[in-house]
C-alpha cells in the first residue's frame, strides 16, 4: 500500500536570542490511509512543530523549515505555492487543536466557521453549505444543530467546542486529520467522549489521523503506530504493542516506568526519569538523552545514534544498545495485573 503521507528527513529550526533551536532535527515517518499514528513526547520534544511543518504553519521568522520532503497523496507539499497550500489546509488535511476556545474565532458564529471551508475548498453555495453543516453537527453528536449554528463559541462548553472543531476538520472530507493534544484541556469524562468520537468517525470515514499527545494511556488506547520523540528526533517507532511491551530505547523504557498506573496497587514511590529535559540550544554531537540515561557509554557521547531496525518488522530505535536492553521493558510488561479499575 502506498502511504498517504511520507515525511523524509524533516528539519525545522527557530532562530532565538539564545541561539538556533533545532526543534525538528531529521524526522522521517509515514502514515498509511485510514491509520492512526501517535506522536508522543514531552514539551519541547518537537512533536507539535513536526506536525505544523506538514501544513507549513511555521511562523517565519523566527522559524524555518530548512530541509526535508513531505509527500502527501502523491504531491510534494514543500513544492506547492501558498495558494495551493491553502487548499490543502482544511481541505485534504483537517486540523484539531488543543484549545478549542482560542482556535475558534470568537466573533463568528459556529455556522459561519463551518461553512467557510465548504465554500472555499469545495465550492458549495450558501444553502448547500448550510445543509452540510447541519449534517456535520449531527455527525459529531450535537443536538439541535440548527440552533447551535447560530451561536458563538463562548456560548458552548469546552467539550462542545471540541466537537465543533472536529466537525470543521471533517467538513471537506479530508484524507488526514492532524490533532494536536485534542483533549488535554478537557476533563477526563469529556476527554473519553471526544476520543471515542474521533476514533469512531476516522474509522467509519476512513480518515488517517496523526494524534499528538503526552498521554501514554491515550496512545495505548487509540494508536496503531507510535513515534516517540525526544529533543527533535524520533527515538523509537513501532506498533503500539511493540513500543509498550518491547521498548528498545532507554527513554521509552524510562517514560513507561515513570507513569503511575491506575490499574496497579498503591506503590508509594514512583520511578522517575532522572535529570532535566535538554536545552535545545546546547545540544552536542552525542545522543541527547545521554545525561539522563542509565545505559549510556562513551560511544553515546561521540555520535547520535540513527534509527535502526530492532525486534519485529517495522520497529525502529535510535540507540547503540537497543539489542542489549531488550527485556528491560519486559520486566515492566510482566508486572501487568488485570485492569481492576476498568469497572
Amino acid at each position: 500500500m502506498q502511504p498517504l503521507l511520507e515525511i523524509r528527513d524533516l528539519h525545522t529550526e527557530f532562530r532565538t536570542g539564545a541561539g538556533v533551536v533545532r526543534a525538528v532535527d531529521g524526522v522521517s515517518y509515514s502514515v498509511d490511509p485510514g491509520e492512526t499514528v501517535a506522536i508522543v513526547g514531552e514539551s519541547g520534544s518537537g512533536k507539535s512543530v513536526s506536525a505544523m511543518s506538514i501544513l507549513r504553519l511555521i511562523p517565519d521568522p523566527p522559524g524555518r523549515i530548512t530541509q526535508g520532503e513531505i509527500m502527501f497523496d502523491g504531491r510534494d507539499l514543500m513544492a506547492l505555492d501558498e495558494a495551493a497550500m491553502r487548499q490543502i489546509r482544511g481541505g485534504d488535511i483537517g486540523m484539531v487543536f488543543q484549545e478549542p476556545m482560542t482556535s475558534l474565532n470568537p466573533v463568528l458564529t459556529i455556522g459561519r466557521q463551518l461553512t467557510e471551508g465548504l465554500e472555499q475548498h469545495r465550492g458549495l453555495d450558501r444553502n448547500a453549505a448550510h445543509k452540510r453543516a447541519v449534517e456535520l453537527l449531527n455527525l459529531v453528536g450535537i443536538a439541535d444543530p440548527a440552533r447551535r449554528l447560530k451561536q458563538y463559541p463562548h456560548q458552548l462548553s469546552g467539550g462542545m467546542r471540541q466537537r465543533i472543531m472536529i466537525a470543521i476538520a471533517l467538513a471537506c472530507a479530508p484524507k488526514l486529520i492532524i490533532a494536536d493534544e485534542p483533549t488535554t484541556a478537557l476533563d477526563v469524562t469529556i476527554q473519553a467522549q471526544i476520543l471515542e468520537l474521533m476514533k469512531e468517525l476516522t474509522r467509519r470515514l476512513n480518515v488517517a489521523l496523526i494524534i499528538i499527545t503526552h498521554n501514554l494511556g491515550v496512545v495505548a488506547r487509540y494508536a496503531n503506530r507510535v513515534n516517540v520523540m525526544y529533543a527533535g528526533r524520533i527515538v523509537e517507532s513501532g506498533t503500539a504493542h511493540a513500543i509498550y511491551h518491547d521498548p528498545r530505547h532507554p527513554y521509552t523504557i524510562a517514560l513507561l516506568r515513570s507513569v503511575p498506573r491506575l490499574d496497579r496497587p498503591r506503590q508509594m514511590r514512583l520511578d522517575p526519569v532522572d535529570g532535566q529535559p535538554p536545552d535545545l540550544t546546547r545540544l552536542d554531537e552525542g545522543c541527547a538523552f545521554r545525561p539522563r540515561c542509565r545505559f549510556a557509554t562513551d560511544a553515546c557521547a561521540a555520535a547520535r545514534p540513527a534509527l535502526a531496525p530492532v525486534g519485529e518488522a517495522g520497529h525502529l530505535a535510535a540507540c547503540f544498545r537497543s539489542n542489549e536492553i531488550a527485556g528491560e521493558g519486559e520486566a515492566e510488561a510482566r508486572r501487568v495485573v488485570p485492569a481492576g479499575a476498568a469497572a
Partner: protein
Amino acid sequence: MSEAVTAPRPLLEVKGLRMHFPVTEGIVSRRLVGEVKAVDGVDFTVRRGETLGLVGESGCGKTTTGRCILRLEKPTAGEIIYDGVDIAGLDRKALVALRRRIQVIFQDPYSSLNPRMKVGEIIAEPMYVHGIQPDAGKRTARVRELLSVCGLNPSFADRYPHEMSGGQRQRVGIARALALEPEFIVCDEPVSALDVSIQAQVVNLLEDLRAQFGLTYLFIAHDLSVVRHLCQRVAVMYLGRIVELADSDELFDNPRHPYTKALLAAVPVPDPSIEQGRDFRPVQGEVPSPINPPSGCVFHPRCPIAVEACRRARPETREVRPGHFVACDEVR
C-alpha cells in the same frame, strides 16, 4: 462523612462546609440573580500524617474546598475544625498565626512565583512576613538548606524563576511552603502542569518530605493515577459534594458510586493489550451548571442506574464497608 471518631483526634475535620458565590447582573445597580454552589455540604476528616486525595473534574469544588481550609475564602456555612479549633470564622489577626501552620503549593509554577524576585527572596519572604529568622545570615542559610531539601542546588537562590524549568520552579514553590515549618499543606494540582517524566520526581519529593517532616497533605488533583499512588485515602467530588470516600486501593479496586466508576473507566491505562480490547462506553452528558444543579442526587441526569427516587431526594452518605463511604441510595 461522619466517621466514627476513635482516638486519636484528626488534624482537620470539615463538617457541612458550604461555599456559595453570588451571581449578579447589571453594571450600575448590581442585582443578585443566583448563587454558584461551589461547595454544597462537604464533610471529611484528615488524619495527622496522612495524604487525603480530593479528586473530581473542573468545577466540582475541590479547589474551593482547599481555599476554604486555607481561609482564602470565608465559607458560607459549616465548620473547619483544625487541631480542635473552628477556623471557619477566624478574623484576620488570628489567621496570621494559622498560616504558619497551614501552607499551600499551587498548580502553576509559572504564575505562582514572582518573576521580579530571586528564588532566594521568594523562599525567604514567608519568614520575613512572619518575623521568624530576623537575622539575615541565618535566613540565607535556611534558604540554602530548604533548596537542598527540595533537591535543588543551593546556588539557585541567586537565580530568577524564568531561568528554571517547570519542575525546578515547582520545587521552589515547595521550598517556600516549607519555609515556615507547617504541619499541613494544601497541594492544589501540584504536578498537573509538569511533564510526565518530571511529575514522578515531584511526587516522590512530596512523599519524602511528608515522611521526613511528619507533614499532612490535602492533595487536590484531577489525575487519578497520581492520586492512587500518593494518597492513603481519596474523596471523589461531583458538583460541590463528596460522592465517595475510601482508602486508596479500596476506592480504585472497588468503586461503588456510579460517578466514581464512570470516572475510573474514562482513564485509559498505558497498555495497548488492555486498552485495545476493552469494550468501553464513556458516560454521556456534561457536568451541569452549579448555579442551577439538578434536584435530588446531582449525578442523576448522567447516571446509568438512576431511578425515579434519585430525582427527588439527596442521597444520604452511608458507610458500605468499614471506612468506605458512598452517597448513593442505589448501591448496596
